């Protein structure tokens, strides 16, 4: 397996939404049909970079998420490539039926950006910490669901979405997180990548949790447990092959997502393995619970989403499974 290209230094932090903002600006320069619509969160979702450069291709719809996606569906019908941004709690949280009918069933290439997903939203509390967007969007035929792992990947994903002919959803986080991928790290919609090779246990991670999974692998290396980290940036369509190959090798699979464990990445992987390769499994995520106010790091730890917590899940999975065999 070829070595993954990562940055040398992982200390720099940046937000996924910033990567999106840069990517959208670039996409706008490359293609005049790229347009952007926002529901009164332009700077917060980093869409202002595009809006300032291309004011004539930017539509401010006000606090109206149902209008946001349906106006975009109309623009897509006339050949535009609309990016629409809001917080994930509102889009797709509030406007899911409009997305279902006018974008998914209607098969219009609207690019829905749900920022501020996950508990790392922090002080705003549960109302704004979207945890249910992955299952909402994964259930829709025609919809592509993307969750990049850092700012650099979010930028690549945005450019890839502008060139993709399908309806897309991309989930982003508010907080600045470590930037570890480089411009040379591969990214393709629909492809998962082994970010770290290992033999004892696989962590299939998405979004901000891929960084935590890589940290988990470092922690467990000290305990002579070899962790393989599979980064799934496209939750739908799922790269089954990369997951099945890794599961066949390690026979132990953990999923990790900053979202409800029900129906998200963990659900998708459980469905896959359950049907094609039953494997001992554990899911890391928020466990049928809403978030709350606090500092991002504090909340990540409280909900058991940090590297130490994942390491414990991995050790327990390995121990339980070994005990079962006897």
């Amino acid at each position, binding site marked *: 397996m070829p070595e993954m290209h990562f940055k040398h230094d992982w200390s720099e932090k940046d937000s996924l939404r910033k990567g999106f903002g840069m990517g959208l600006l670039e996409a706008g320069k490359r293609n005049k049909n790229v*347009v952007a619509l926002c529901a009164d969160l332009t700077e917060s979702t980093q869409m202002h970079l595009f809006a300032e450069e291309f004011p*004539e*291709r930017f*539509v401010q*719809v*006000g606090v*109206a998420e*149902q*209008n946001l996606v*349906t*106006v*975009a*569906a*109309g*623009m*897509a*019908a*006339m*050949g*535009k490539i*609309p990016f629409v941004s809001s917080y994930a709690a509102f889009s797709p949280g509030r406007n899911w*039926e*409009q997305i279902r*009918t*006018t974008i998914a*069933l*209607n*098969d219009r290439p609207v690019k829905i950006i749900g920022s501020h997903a996950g508990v790392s939203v922090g002080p705003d509390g549960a109302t704004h910490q979207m945890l249910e967007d992955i299952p909402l969007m994964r259930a829709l035929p025609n919809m592509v669901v993307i969750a990049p792992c850092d700012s650099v990947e979010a930028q690549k994903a945005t450019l890839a979405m502008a060139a993709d002919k399908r309806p897309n959803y991309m989930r982003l986080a508010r907080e600045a997180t470590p930037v570890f991928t480089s411009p040379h790290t591969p990214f393709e919609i629909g492809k998962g990548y082994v970010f770290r090779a290992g033999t004892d246990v696989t962590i299939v991670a998405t979004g901000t949790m891929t960084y935590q999974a890589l940290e988990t692998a470092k922690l467990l290396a000290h305990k002579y447990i070899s962790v393989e980290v599979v980064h799934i940036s496209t939750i739908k369509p799922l790269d089954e092959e990369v997951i099945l190959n890794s599961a066949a090798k390690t026979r132990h699979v953990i999923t990790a997502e900053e979202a409800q464990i029900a129906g998200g990445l963990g659900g998708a992987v459980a469905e896959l393995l359950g049907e094609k390769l039953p494997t001992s499994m554990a899911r890391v995520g928020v466990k049928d619970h809403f978030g709350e106010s606090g500092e991002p790091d504090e909340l990540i730890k409280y909900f058991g989403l940090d590297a130490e917590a994942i390491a414990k899940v991995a050790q327990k999975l390995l121990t339980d499974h070994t005990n079962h065999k006897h």
Partner: protein
Amino acid sequence: MTDMPHQYSIKELEQRANDIRMDIIKMLEQAGSGHSAGPLGLADIFTALYFHSLKHDPKNPDWDGRDILILSNGHCVPVRYATMAHAGYFPKAELLTLRKFGSRLQGHPERLRLPGMETTSGPLGSGLSQATGMALALKMDDVRNRWVYVITSDGELDEGNSWEAVMLAAKYNPGNLIAIVDRNNIQIDGPTESVMPLESLKAKWEAFGWFALNINGNDIEAIISAVEMAKAVTEKPVVIIAHTIPGKGVDFMEKDFHWHGKPPGHEEAMKALKELRTLQGKIRSEHQ
């Protein structure tokens, strides 16, 4: 057909609307489910649009110079199917497949199944915003002489999404958008004014920054002239509040909200067809 020469007289258009009503009755009876009142009430508007006002080409539904017609209240699609068949989009025989398995004529319209359908609709309140998006996209590309028409029901103005679109269209005034409200005063649960009062409807649209017209939506001449008026108004988007009689043309269906969401049975269909047949040639006097 691309330039739609105004070759039909008002009388011919009225006869066409009546024929379309008869097809609607046959389709609904055959389907065994669906909505009767709305499609019958809208037959004059659809006839006026497809046979007079719209720029379109039934043999080339994707023609990039066409006007766009969005039917927001998708449950009224039988009238659109019937009118499209009359205009030559597909054979009339296909009308009897409405709502059947494998048919292109789905219970609610699906763009991907039938060329010329423009969008998928049924869940209410989203047509006006899609039309606004289309109109804005045309404006961005500096396309002139292409109009976006959107028909909404009155009941769907209960939806917040409708008013979000009303505000946005007034803000950007794309200059090529015409909304037509099917003001038939009924919705599934009863009269609109008892389910959720909409009046003063014209004043509401005006307060939201639109130019509003009240017309008799069953008078083809009035519809054609309102559309011309709408095209002449440039300072605001225009809404035509078309007062229609639900179930128009069939005595026992007219103005009865119970016919909003059900089809005629065999006997009822026979009775309705007989009524529509005997009205032929007298329609114009009926209006006066």
